[in-house]
Each structure stands twice: as C-alpha cells, then as structure tokens.
C-alpha cells in the first residue's frame, strides 16, 4: 500500500509541529528517525487518522483522508501502535486484542479468536494471554500493543516507538516479526534507535523540527557522512561534533580536523548526527 503525503502541516496553537512535508511511503519498512519533539508521533497520528492535519493532503492506498469515507476505508486497512497504549484495568491481554479485533470488523467469533491467538503468539505472549494487562511489565504491555496492531492483518502498519521498553531478545524477535510482515505491506515505525533503522528498515526519513531532512535508503544516509568522520588525538575547534571514544581517541564529525586525523568508515549514527547538526535552526525555519 502506497502512502502519499503532500504539503502536510500541523500546528498546535502558534507552534508549527509539521512543516510542509512531502513524503511517498512505499511497501517495505520506513523508519522515522528524529530527536524528541521532532514531530514523529504527530506524523504517525495523522497517518493513522487519529489526528487531523492543519493543511495538506494524505492518500493511503488511494483513499483520501480528507473525506469521511476515505478515512473509514483507510481505517479498515491500517494497524496502529500509539506511543502509549492504555488499557482497562479489568481487561486481559486476550480481551484487549479481541476488543480491537471487534472494532476492526472481525465479526465472526471463531475466526476472530483464531486471529487474536495468532497475534498474541506472534509477540510471544501466549503464556500470559489470560492475565490482566495491569499485572504485566512495561515491555510486555508494549508487545500487547503490537499484537493489537497486527491482529486484523493490516496493509499499512504504523508503529510509534515499537521497541521502546523491549529487552534485547524481544527487540530481536520484534525485528524478525516486522521483517516477516513487511513482505507485502507498508510498515512505518518511529524510533530514536539508529540500530532499529539499520536492522530492519528499507527506507529512512530523518525528521527534524517537522521537516524531512532526508528520505532514502539507510545506505544512502550513511553515504552522506563519507569523508566526514575522523579519528583525531585532540578535540578540534572546527568539528560539528566530537567525543572521546572508549579507546581514548577523539571521534570527529565534520571537516578534516587536522593533518594527522585519520578518515574512518561512517556509521548510520554518524550520518544521522551529521544531517541533524547541519539542519537549519528554528529561527532560520521561521
């Protein structure tokens, strides 16, 4: 399913959170990477139809989200994990996923329960399916949220910080799950973790103060930092960013800090830091 965003803006009062965004999201996994307050949650809320844009147009698989009919059709085809999933204290894991499955129009009880069990199994929570959600750990609740997002087999899967609070093993399981799901659907996930992007994403959007600073493949993002990452002996004045590594050398992002500095292979994180540190300031954007 293709998602086309054109000229999208969203403001809260006088603060502009998304600024004239143009994005085309294709089937595969797109990671939205950005610092706190960049507008990731706002963008995902708008794509999920939970929030209306202030301006601009969004088409989800050809359905225009500005019309009530378009929104309903898009809602039939999407799964959404909010940044925070609430729960009713008396609900068990099964009940919550089942409730969302009912709202997603899975009316046949037998088939619905089969799908609910499959989704709970996919996130490794079968053993606690009958437990009340309030008794589960934060990471387990996150997995309940992922289960409800995938229960209706959505063509568009929107996940806001899906790996937040997951232990390393669960993060790995989640990545396997998402990769297996992404074959024929569009997955959009927001994260602060560059490792998430490197591990699973086929495309990455770097969001900065409501603007897409970069949209392309992770390898293309990494290439942006080619010839811009160095190991030096001392902290230079000219660097955009520099920090001392565990080995004692200084890692520098920016132009060559000194003749003795050695160029090194950039990581995705280096490229992300480079792109966001070269971004226009808030004052320039205004």
């Amino acid at each position, binding site marked *: 399913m293709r998602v086309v965003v054109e000229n999208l803006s969203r403001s809260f009062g006088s603060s502009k959170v998304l600024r004239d965004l143009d994005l085309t999201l294709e089937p595969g996994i797109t990671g939205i990477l950005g610092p706190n307050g960049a507008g990731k949650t706002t963008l995902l809320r708008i794509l999920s139809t939970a929030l209306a844009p202030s301006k601009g147009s969004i088409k989800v698989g050809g359905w225009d989200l500005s019309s009530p009919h378009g929104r309903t059709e898009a809602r039939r085809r999407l799964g959404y994990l909010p*940044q925070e999933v609430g729960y009713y204290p008396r609900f068990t894991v099964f009940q919550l996923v089942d409730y969302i499955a009912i*709202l997603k129009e899975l009316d046949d009880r*037998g088939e619905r329960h089969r799908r609910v069990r499959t989704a709970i199994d996919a996130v490794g929570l079968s053993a606690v399916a*009958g437990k009340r959600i309030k008794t589960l750990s934060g990471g387990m609740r996150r997995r309940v949220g992922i289960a409800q997002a995938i229960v209706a087999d959505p063509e568009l899967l929107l996940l806001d910080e899906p790996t937040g609070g997951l232990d390393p093993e669960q993060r790995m399981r989640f990545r396997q799950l998402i990769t297996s799901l992404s074959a024929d659907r569009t997955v959009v996930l927001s994260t602060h973790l560059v490792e998430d992007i490197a591990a699973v994403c086929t495309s990455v959007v770097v969001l900065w103060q409501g603007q897409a600073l970069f949209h392309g493949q992770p390898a293309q993002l990494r290439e942006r930092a080619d010839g811009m990452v160095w190991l030096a002996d001392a902290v230079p004045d000219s660097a955009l960013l520099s920090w001392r590594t565990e080995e004692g050398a200084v890692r520098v992002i920016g132009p060559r800090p000194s003749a003795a500095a050695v160029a090194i292979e950039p990581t995705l994180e280096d490229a992300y830091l480079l792109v966001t540190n070269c971004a226009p300031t808030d004052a320039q954007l205004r």
Partner: protein
Amino acid sequence: MSYHLDPTHHPLEELSQVRAGVVLAPQAMEHLAQCAACEQFVAQELPLDLDRVFAGVLAELHAPRTTSLERALCRLRLPVWLARSITAAPALQGSWLACSVVVISLAALVGGLHGSSGNAVPPLLVLAPCVVAAAVAFCYGPRVDPLFELTQVTPASRTVALLARMGAVIGVNSVVIAVASGLAGGPVAAFAWFPSMAAVSLLSAVIAARTRPVVGVGAGLVIWTSAVLAVSSSGLRVTSALWGAPAQLCYGVAALGCGVLLVHWIRHERVFLLPQAGL
C-alpha cells in the same frame, strides 16, 4: 473411545481449533502417549508444537467472558463492537453507578422527608442534572477512555459510539432517578426532572468535548446551580419558575441545540482532540 490422528483430516488444524482443542486435545495427548503408530506419525509428518496447541486451548479458556449487560445488548441486536464499547464506558461501571444511586437516593429521601413545604428547592430536581452531567462528561473521550486513541483509528463510527454511550448513561440514570423519586413520593410531577437533566448534561458534554471532562462538568454545574440560586433568591415560586412549562421548553431547545452541535463536531472530527503523547 478410540482416537487416531488421521492425516487426511488435518489433525493439526483440528487440534489447534478452539473448540476441537478443548474437547479433543486431552484425548489426543492421552492417545499419543499410548499409540506408537500415531506417535511416529506425529514425529515424522507433523511439526506439531504441543506448547502452541495448549497455548491455544489456554487462550480460549481465557477468552473474554462477556458481561451479562453486553449479552443483553447483543440480544437487542446491537453490534458486538457497540455492546462492548457501551459496557466499557467508565460512567457505566458498577462503582460509578453505585455512587450515582447513593446520591440520587439520598436526594430523593431528603426531598420526601421535607415534602413540598413552602418555596423549598426539591433536592432531587437540583441534584439529578448534576449527577447525570458528570456521568455524561465522563463517558467518552481521550481523557476518559484509556483505549481512546486505538478506537479512533478503527472503522467503528465515532458518532454512533458517542451517542450510544451517552444514551446508555442517560437511560440508566433516568431509570435510577425515576425509581428513586417514585419511591420517595416526591412533590413534583414525574419526569419533570428530565428536560433540565438533559439540557445540563448535554451542555456539560459539549464543553467537555472541547476542553476536558472536569471543565465540562464544572461549567454545567456552575451554570445550573447559579440558575437555581438566582431563582430561589428572587422570590419567584421555584418549582414553577424552574420546572414549569416555559422553563421545560427552554431546556428542551437547549438540549437539542447542544446535541446537534456535538454530533456536528464529532462528524467533522473537530472535538475530543488527543492530548500530547507522554504527558
């Protein structure tokens, strides 16, 4: 009874099926332990993950026990999603309803004891709108419903969900008020409380939809009690000024206006805005 795993009958699927799992899985397990042929068949032919099968059985055993209210609503031909949405409303939970019953009963009792002496304000008539306004403002919205954000992105109609919850809350509370006032033999004609209750509740709901439930309830209560105090201190006859035919007509118009406004807003998705994530 003899039980053999028959490859032509897709036993795995059968075993993992909900009902078949509950009924057959223990028999199948027992049989597997005793029958070498089946055991060999399972080992060679089937990727039978018994943990998974039992997890399926357990999950079904833990599947939601629908409440009797939900079943009753489904029997009234309400769709399952709506029945569950209604029964999940905070203002329809046992503890909330119990509080409403206590307040309304006390008001009816006090009113009954005092009778229709002089120009006294009937407590039930004053309190009924307040109790229902609070319940209506707390029946729907992002600050009330922990699953609100999730439910908003489903194809289920927001307008229907809101109206159904409000209708259920007003209906249930109306029954409580009617019974309480009937038992206490109140001074004012039956159901005179209804229009004022509807007007104050819907006014609170409209304000709550734009702001927060507490603001909605607070505003509704302030407006209503101010009106009651103003009339009772003005020397007018309270019951006829506040619950006479002209007043009832005004309440009716106000309730209708607020209802129409609320439906218009929710259809255009202009209200019940999500608060900032993480706050």
